[in-house]
């Protein structure tokens, strides 16, 4: 056990391990690129959907049930399915990651919208705001803390799951995990896993801090 940790330490800290196309820096950049792009696409789908459901109050069952759907979704299965249907490209990976991220975004956006005080919404209409003005000037800003929580959760999930890109021969930190498994190189597997975990936790902390800073004027 001690030997393993020592080897892991050497693997993570050796300069040669960090450089080159197979180096940690490059894999890390790939991993973040997959994750951010997938989350952005998911946000482009999930945000309007959540806002629309919250604003109109129609389709609430969808927003609520998406959450359990998201939890039950077999990510690897989805990758394989799209891969079989569409051939080898990054598409299956992105489809799976986006499908993973959308429920968290929709559900939290919807929750944020429903948490807006009905009196405030009533007052906004009563002052003469039109539907889109109520949405963008009142509901959206008030729902923003929960919306950001949704985006944060989605990003963390995606970062943790983006290792599957390597499963269909692409890059990212999953490369170490799958290559390590194939080569029976336990240190490499562990190194990849530790890196993914550290990045996920670091992003979570960073975004939580950002949220606290942005909404410091709000009451609980």
């Amino acid at each position, binding site marked *: 056990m001690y030997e393993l940790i020592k080897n892991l330490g050497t693997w993570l800290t050796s300069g040669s391990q960090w450089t080159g196309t197979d180096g940690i820096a490059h894999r890390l950049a790939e991993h973040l690129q997959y994750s951010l792009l997938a989350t952005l696409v998911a946000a482009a789908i999930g945000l309007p959907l959540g806002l629309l459901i919250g604003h109109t109050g129609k389709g609430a069952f969808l927003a609520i049930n998406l959450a359990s759907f998201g939890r039950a979704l077999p990510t690897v299965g989805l990758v394989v399915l799209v891969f079989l249907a569409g051939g080898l490209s990054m598409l299956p990976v992105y489809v799976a990651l986006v499908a993973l991220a959308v429920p968290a975004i929709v559900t939290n956006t919807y929750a944020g919208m429903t948490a807006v005080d009905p009196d405030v919404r*009533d007052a906004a209409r009563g002052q003469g705001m039109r539907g889109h003005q109520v949405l963008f000037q009142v509901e959206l800003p*008030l729902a923003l803390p929960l919306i950001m929580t949704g985006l944060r959760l989605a990003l963390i999930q995606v970062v943790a799951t983006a290792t599957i890109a390597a499963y269909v021969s692409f890059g990212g930190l999953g490369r170490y995990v799958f290559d390590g498994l194939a080569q029976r190189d336990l240190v490499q597997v562990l190194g990849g896993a530790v890196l993914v975990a550290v990045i996920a936790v670091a992003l979570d902390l960073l975004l939580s801090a950002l949220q606290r800073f942005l909404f410091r004027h709000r009451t609980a």
Partner: protein
Amino acid sequence: MIQFDAVHKRFPNGTTAVHDLTLDMPEGGVTVLVGSSGCGKTTTLRMINRMVEPTSGTIKVGGKDVTRQDAAELRRSIGYVIQQSGLFPHRTVLDNIATVPLLLGHGRKRARARAAELLETVGLTAESGKRYPHQLSGGQQQRVGVARALAADPPVLLMDEPFGAVDPVVRTQLQDELLRLQKELNKTIVFVTHDVDEAVRLGDRIAIFRTGGHLVQCAPPAELLARPADDFVADFLGAERGLKLLSLKTLAEVPQGPAPEGAAWSLVCDAAGRPLHWAADDAEVPVRPLKDGDSLLAALDESVASPAGLVARVDADGVLTGVTSRNDIHRHAGRAHTEARVAA
């Protein structure tokens, strides 16, 4: 100014909120809508700015049918204050007040300048403009709510139980402020409350609603108190409606004279002539001096509480001008009732 003509409101669930309402609310007056909960008073108010659409009948504001106007534009031209103030928690007090001017496209600078002016109008400090609503007390939040409604200087103000959620002391202050503002601004105000005392205090006219959305009586407060249309109105106004009527009359017309010499109780004043207390051989009783603007009800109360049966009258500076006897107050109280019965 605001005319209801045969207005009906039935909600999709089948309940009738407002039943065949025909009512005129005069310009520059305060019309108070009262009644127990579920009587349709709030629905009536909300139909004026189309927050609720009538099922049938017409509502006109300033001669124009409200349903023929764009709802958002109509609402910008009508001030709207609600019970929990409904302030936007993510905007500063100043930006809350500037809401309607901004919607009207007045520009941020001009809208903020107007908002700053209104802070003062409703009795708030300039410093409070930078705060967020949750940093203010309930009473202060309601003041901001009133300022927001006044921002675009609308001729009509709708107030839906605006002082319902604040404590009695603050409520009285806010009512006083509203009366003072109304003297200055002369708006057409529609005010919803379930508190009869508030209605009597603020209303030029009071409309009483019964469950099922029926308007039972609409009259000036004195007439309503003296001649309730039926038992429902009489019950609603309460057992002390005779006393409530006295709250509408001031002491101004009641004569006063010098304090009688050699009585058991004498009034002790300070060097400037301000009453301090009633004094007998070995006792002192506090005095509550009254001004001409105080109500006959307050005078009656003081005449009962005063050991000498006399009310001390003072001028604006609190200096004694004379005393009025219990008998004189009773005589005027009786006269107030007779007048109210024959009037109108």
